[in-house]
């Protein structure tokens, strides 16, 4: 009984047992009263709205802007440690960094030309 995994297995069994017991008990003894409001989609107590006009299209301008910001933001974060240690890193790191920036710029050119930066 010295196997270190035995306590883990017991914990696993306890976890499954607890979940099965709680769900099972509520299934068996819990009251079941269905009505229309209960079957509707939950929207924080507000009446669920029908689909948006034009076949469910919603404007994603903010989403797109936020996505692009995060992508370029995260990529430019890599420039800081490089800039701080620039003196010690030498030519190899400079070339690597230029390649990295070119890659980012390819993405930038794509976003720009395909209208990702236009608001309307």
């Amino acid at each position, binding site marked *: 009984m010295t196997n270190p995994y035995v306590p883990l297995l017991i914990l696993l069994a306890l976890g499954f047992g607890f979940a099965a017991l709680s769900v099972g008990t509520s299934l068996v003894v819990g009251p079941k009263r269905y009505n229309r409001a209960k079957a509707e989609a939950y929207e924080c107590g507000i009446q669920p709205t029908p689909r948006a006009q034009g*076949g469910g*299209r919603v404007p994603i301008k903010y989403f797109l802007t936020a996505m692009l910001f995060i992508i370029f933001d995260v990529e430019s974060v890599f420039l800081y440690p490089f800039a*701080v240690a620039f003196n010690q*890193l030498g030519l190899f790191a400079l070339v690597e960094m230029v390649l990295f920036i070119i890659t980012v710029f*390819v993405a930038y*050119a794509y976003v*720009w*030309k*395909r209208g990702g930066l236009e608001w309307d």
Partner: protein
Amino acid sequence: MSALPAFEAVAVDYWAVAPMLVVVAGALLGVLVEAFAPRESRHSAQVALTVGTLVAAFGVLVWRSVNHHSVTFGGSVAVDGPALFLQGALLVMSSVAVLVMAERFGGVGGDAFTPMGASTPGSSQEAAAAKAGYATSEVFPLTLFAVFGMMIFVSANDLITMFVGLEVLSLPLYVMTGLARRRRLLSQEAALKYFLLGAFSSAFFLFGAALIYGFAGSTDLAKIQSAIAQGTTGMDGLLVPGVLLLIIGLLFKVGAVPFHMWTPDAYQGAPTPVTGFMAACTKVAAFGAILRLVYVGVEGSRWDWRLGIAAIAILTMVVGAVLSVTQTDVKRLLAYSSIAHAGFILVGVLAFSKAAVSGVMFYLVAYGFATIAAFAIISMVRQGGSEASHLSQWAGLGKRHPVVAAVFSLLLLAFAGIPLTSGFTAKFAAFAPAVTSGGTAGVLMVIVGVLASAVTAYVYVRIIVLMYFTAAPEAGEGEEVVALMPSIGTTVAITVGVLATILLGIWPGWALDLAGRAAQFML
């Protein structure tokens, strides 16, 4: 600010990684083409660029990289025999798959991809985009990025690099899955399922990597190997759970049971040429990574987890084979068959010998070429413009389109593992090491594997019977099912698949020899 520790530039063997650099450069160029080329010329430019890049990368690989076996980038990338063999296979297979993706049937019905990925399925925006001649030619750079990720994946010698490769190959595939022109909702649903379960599996992989780091103090496979060889590191309890989590993360990608839930949905929903690419190339990449992980990294601890993975292999073969019997959709049927094939390959992986490595690699090549050709044929068989993927629609196809039916039958026989096709040689190559060096578990797995093959053979033969000996449904029940005339690209792809199936079946010596010589891991 205190002085930083001295920076040491890692030595890079550029010729060893040159094929990967070619592919990523081609992908970046593809993005620029997408941004700057006029719309009319994009499709042809992308096809030429993509195929050119893949062929050039293969050329560089054959010309230089084969002489540059090395562990480079500070030990995180190992370019050795298996890596080069699988990278070469990936490059050839993906060029063939790209030829199928480029299919437009001379303008009848357009290509397999939606004109506008962001539009609501069936909406007026989508119809307008189709009318204006939009095309999602982004699939070609996405394919190149996916191939790049796969190439990293099979040569990753460090868990972090392996994870980066996993993500680089997965993210484009999630997008490509959701781009089908027909049945968009099904396609988007498939993409979402694939994405969520893929993200889930990445979490498993990362958790495993963290535990292994806790055990070995490094994510480098060589250091993990020596930590295991050393015996104890004071954190021994982390090893086996870590290994299992890592392997589970990778088994998700090959669709082994019980991690296969996404496979039928993703295979059915994805545009058919993408399904072919995904089925063939993702399997190669994921099994390449599994081979490297379990043969190089954690081989020393294999007695602790081998039986668990053997159980998964048996389950995979049985579930894949049995569930394929009940399928009525050709794409779902091939998805379950691919699950069964994943199980067959796992049998080979678990034999732990050099012969097993070459057997598995040979299996991947044989299966990959047949799969791409099979999905290319599925994309040709249409009813009223959309793919006739329901099995009943294939009834009587042999009378009207004898060549298409004959080729598809050959590929199905190869999947079943009938002698004189590549499937038989491949199964033999993967099962033989399991019998000779796999012990009792290996023999048991092979017995289950042969029985599962018999079950799948029934499924495949049933389709052949359906195509040749069942009368086509009466005319008047909608349009007739036809096989569209493929363009040169698809014809080449199918021809390559058929030739590979026959050649590797009748005359497999040279390929087995090549795989055998490439089967030595460097570490």
